[in-house]
């Protein structure tokens, strides 16, 4: 209470300084008058009386000073003075100030922008009830991770675990949603009844699933997402009790979820589930079929991840007798969701941190150079009684102010950079909420700003405040060269800068090389002018193979008639398709053992021609290869090489995997096609679609013009066959390729941007230090020139100093790169993390830019006019 009052009065006094100073001067004066009066009365001369009075007081100014310290907040006042002084300094050197603030702004901005994403993705808790207690349960099979759990395991976990207070499962599905005469493909979720309770979400309308609804054979019900309800059903408030039609089946709507409820999809993308069905709808009591699902649980109080793992592992081994090749993985759900992007984000954060470090070094160098020119100022301050601490405080205030201003600029950069970054990374960010600059980011930004201010200010401040007063006042600060130690500090700073740039450039070089290697991989097909769209026939409507084949045959016929369409075909697995069909244990006639797995694709005869897949031997399919005619297949080269290494495979037969005592004859060999450019093409068998039906097919159209312009026409032709079978994933081959490369491209571009920033900062740093040295040594150089030194020798002298620093920087950077690039080896393709060519090229770039940076100061030194510079002394 008393203390608060004291503080209040002290703060108040800050606003009445003038009046209080005047009043105290008066009070002292009256004190002295009284004292002097007493003195005179005791027989002293007025002068002597006054002298003694002042003496007893202990001097007038010191008393006033002490009174001021007691009265106000001396720390704050001196801070205010320092800030005002710093602001004056900055205004009077606008170029210097702008350089410092811009440099810091770039560094802090880059770091803050990346941190904003890190904060939004890795640090911010998931938007569910007590998200830190949510765990994700997945399995391993023979040591390899499988991101799912199986229904039988899930049931055992649910009924017998002792470490989870709640457990829920969900999965996604795709279906054709029909409303009126329109159909569209939607992604929905399957959720156990416990799912919404576990996440702490209540339906905004209606209710959660009932126990009988989430049991095998239960009634068909659905809960809509808030978005689907709004966008597809016009936010109809009376929707509960009505029904939606999926794949021709009617589902009763029992609830609507609040808007903005999102659940991470399996592939990291921002899955929005249009609606939810009870999980048990997939379960068939009779068949006891197993399907995969995502299992999420809530830790019991006190339970740890290890305990859950042990608990579930025991259940799996003992209760289910799964055998030892199966294992359990329990992780925090947030980690599970973000693990795909964590490493990339941390790489970016490191790169940004490096850039920030370099920005700091550059600014420290600038301040060091200026410190030398401020020696006189400091000398005067010291001489009139400022303590070393006081000067340090003032200098650090100055650099902290630089830091804060840089931080503010950085925040502006970050705001702008963040949007670019998010747009860049969007397909890979599993964030469930928009990524914002929130309080955490602001705190980070300000902390980084102040810390960097102190970090780059400390060395120059120590140097400035720690010097010989007399020397600095005697010397004019001009013409003399630096002492040994500040010069060494500067060289060390430049060397470390070159080393940092080397590390970043090596990383960027590796990413670049990896990217272009991958980009230039020949997938074995032509990607231009290809339109693709995928169809999943409703199985209840297209029951037989004949129906399915007939649908696609008619669709292809109609699409083929379109002007602008050169050819139309179908395939089950075009390049980049998530679906691939793998057969294990294919039996080749005449070969004793069943082969290892091969891929199988069902295609129409035109498919090879449309994608430009070359025929190597034999023939491709014709319309004659249809139901009723002999079964034929075409294989790829990889298949032929693998299974018929010596001899022709044409005419050889493969046992039909669908039918006993039936054989498919190999009639042709085509070129290899890579599904993903990263992976070699596996052995593959192509079957003619007229002989082998399927419900999931991608229609592939070669067009004369822009393929996307044809998409409406192609869709209408499909609708003409059956308008309840909407195509989805409509794209072009070029787009599919682009999409596939986006994550790598973004990563590569970001790292390159950081590396270029680092290179610029490094070059500026070298240039700055050398030109400063040259300026300091103008006198010496002038004398040398006057005495007849060759200008080339002067150039050599400056250059050798610069190149010395660069060489040591490259040496250290090389060692650091060799150690650090290993960390990104998982992100690289087709290039080793210690690729000597890349490292050599990077070193060459650094040497070349370093040379350029040295050359200008060196030339300036050689061109120094001895007379002019000596006259100036």
């Amino acid at each position, binding site marked *: 209470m008393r203390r608060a*009052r*004291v503080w209040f009065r002290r703060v108040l006094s800050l606003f009445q300084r003038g009046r209080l100073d005047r009043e105290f001067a008066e*009070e002292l004066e*009256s004190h002295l*008058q*009284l*004292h002097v009066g007493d003195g005179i009365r005791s027989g002293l001369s007025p002068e002597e009386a006054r002298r003694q009075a002042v003496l007893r007081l*202990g*001097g007038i100014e010191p008393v006033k000073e002490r*009174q001021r310290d007691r009265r106000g907040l001396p720390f704050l006042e001196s801070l205010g003075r320092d800030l005002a002084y710093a602001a004056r300094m900055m205004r009077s050197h606008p170029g210097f100030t702008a350089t410092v603030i811009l440099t810091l702004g770039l560094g802090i901005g880059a770091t803050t922008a990346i941190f904003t994403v890190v904060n939004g993705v890795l640090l911010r808790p998931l938007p569910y009830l007590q998200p830190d207690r949510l765990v994700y349960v997945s399995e391993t099979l023979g040591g390899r991770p499988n991101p799912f759990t199986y229904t039988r395991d899930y049931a055992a976990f649910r009924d017998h675990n002792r470490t989870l207070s709640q457990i829920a499962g969900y999965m996604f599905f795709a279906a054709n949603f029909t409303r009126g005469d329109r159909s569209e493909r939607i992604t929905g979720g399957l959720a156990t009844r416990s799912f919404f309770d576990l996440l702490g979400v209540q339906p905004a309308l209606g209710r959660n699933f009932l126990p009988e609804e989430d049991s095998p054979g239960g009634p068909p019900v659905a809960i809509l997402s808030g978005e689907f309800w709004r966008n597809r059903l016009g936010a109809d408030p009376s929707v509960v009790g009505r029904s939606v039609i999926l794949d021709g089946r009617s589902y009763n709507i029992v609830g609507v979820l609040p808007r903005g409820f999102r659940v991470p999809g399996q592939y990291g993308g921002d899955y929005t589930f249009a609606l939810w069905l009870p999980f048990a709808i997939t379960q068939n009591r009779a068949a006891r079929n197993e399907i995969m699902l995502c299992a999420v649980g809530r830790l019991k109080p006190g339970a740890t991840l290890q305990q859950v793992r042990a608990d579930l592992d025991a259940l799996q081994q003992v209760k289910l007798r799964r055998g030892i090749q199966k294992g359990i993985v329990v992780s925090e759900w947030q980690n599970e969701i973000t693990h795909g992007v964590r490493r990339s984000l941390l790489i970016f954060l490191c790169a940004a941190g490096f850039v920030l470090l370099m920005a700091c070094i550059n600014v420290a160098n600038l301040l060091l150079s200026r410190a030398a020119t401020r020696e006189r100022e400091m000398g005067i301050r010291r001489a009139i009684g400022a303590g070393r601490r006081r000067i340090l405080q003032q200098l650090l205030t100055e650099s902290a102010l630089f830091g804060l201003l840089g931080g503010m600029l950085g925040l502006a950069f970050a705001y702008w950079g963040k949007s670019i970054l998010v747009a860049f990374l969007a397909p890979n960010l599993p964030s469930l909420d928009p990524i914002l600059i929130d309080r955490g980011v602001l705190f980070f930004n300000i902390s980084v700003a102040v810390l960097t201010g102190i970090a780059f200010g400390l060395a120059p401040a120590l140097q400035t405040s720690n010097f010989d007063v007399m020397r600095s006042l005697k010397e004019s600060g001009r013409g003399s060269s630096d002492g040994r130690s500040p010069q060494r500090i500067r060289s060390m700073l430049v060397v470390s800068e070159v080393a940092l740039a080397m590390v970043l450039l090596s990383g960027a070089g590796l990413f670049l090389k990896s990217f272009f290697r991958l980009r230039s991989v020949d997938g074995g097909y032509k990607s231009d002018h290809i339109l693709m769209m995928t169809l999943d026939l409703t199985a209840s409507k297209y029951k037989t193979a004949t129906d399915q084949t007939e649908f696609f045959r008619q669709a292809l016929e109609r699409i083929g008639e379109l002007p602008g369409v050169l050819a139309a075909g179908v395939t089950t697995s075009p390049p980049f398709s998530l679906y691939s069909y793998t057969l294990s244990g294919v039996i080749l006639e005449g070969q004793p053992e069943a082969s290892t797995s091969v891929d199988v694709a069902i295609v129409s005869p035109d498919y090879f021609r449309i994608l430009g897949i070359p025929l190597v031997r034999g023939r491709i399919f014709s319309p004659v290869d249809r139901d009723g005619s002999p079964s034929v297949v075409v294989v790829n080269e990889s298949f032929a090489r693998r299974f018929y290494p010596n001899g022709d495979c044409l005419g050889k037969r493969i046992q039909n995997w669908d039918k006993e005592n039936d054989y498919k004859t190999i009639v042709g060999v085509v070129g290899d096609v890579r599904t993903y450019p990263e992976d070699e093409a596996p052995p593959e068998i192509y079957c003619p679609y007229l002989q082998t039906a399927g419900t999931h097919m991608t229609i592939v159209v070669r067009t004369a013009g822009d393929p996307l312009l044809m998409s409406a026409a192609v869709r209408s032709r499909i609708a003409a066959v059956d308008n309840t079978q909407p195509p989805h994933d409509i794209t072009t081959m070029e787009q599919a390729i682009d999409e596939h490369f986006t994550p790598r491209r973004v990563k590569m571009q970001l790292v390159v941007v950081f590396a270029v920033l680092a290179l610029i900062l490094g070059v500026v740093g070298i240039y700055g230090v050398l030109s400063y040295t040259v300026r300091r040594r103008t006198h010496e150089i002038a004398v040398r020139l006057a005495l007849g030194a060759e200008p080339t020798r002067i150039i050599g002298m400056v250059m050798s100093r610069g190149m010395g620093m660069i060489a040591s920087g490259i040496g250290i950077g090389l060692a650091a790169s060799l150690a650090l690039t290993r960390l990104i080896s998982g992100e690289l393709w087709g290039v080793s993390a210690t690729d000597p060519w890349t490292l050599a090229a990077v070193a060459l770039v650094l040497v070349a830019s370093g040379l350029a940076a040295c050359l200008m100061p060196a030339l300036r030194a050689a061109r120094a006019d001895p007379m002019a510079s000596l006259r100036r002394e």
Partner: protein
Amino acid sequence: MNKKADVWQGTLALMVLRTLHALGPLHGYGIARRIETTSGDLLSVNYGTLYPALLKLEQEGYIASEWGLSENKRKAKFYKLTAAGRKHLTREAREWERMTGIMARFLPPAEQTS
């Protein structure tokens, strides 16, 4: 005994309060003189340290000040005890007595005289 004792900050505040309690409103110079005479000229108040002590007491609200006329008709700042100051003085004086009582037991009069 020529050496005069310096005054401790804490005790100086108590002396100021006590002086104001005894004499009523007084200016800084008067307070300093009074402390010196009361101590039988054994204490030397550095007049310069008196003013921060007065300021502190005023900030704490134990004393208040106003401008008035001194005995030689000069404008001077007069300090007086506030109600809070009076209470504080009683409390502090009691505490001081307790402390000196304890100290006295450790330092018997016989030793003190030597």
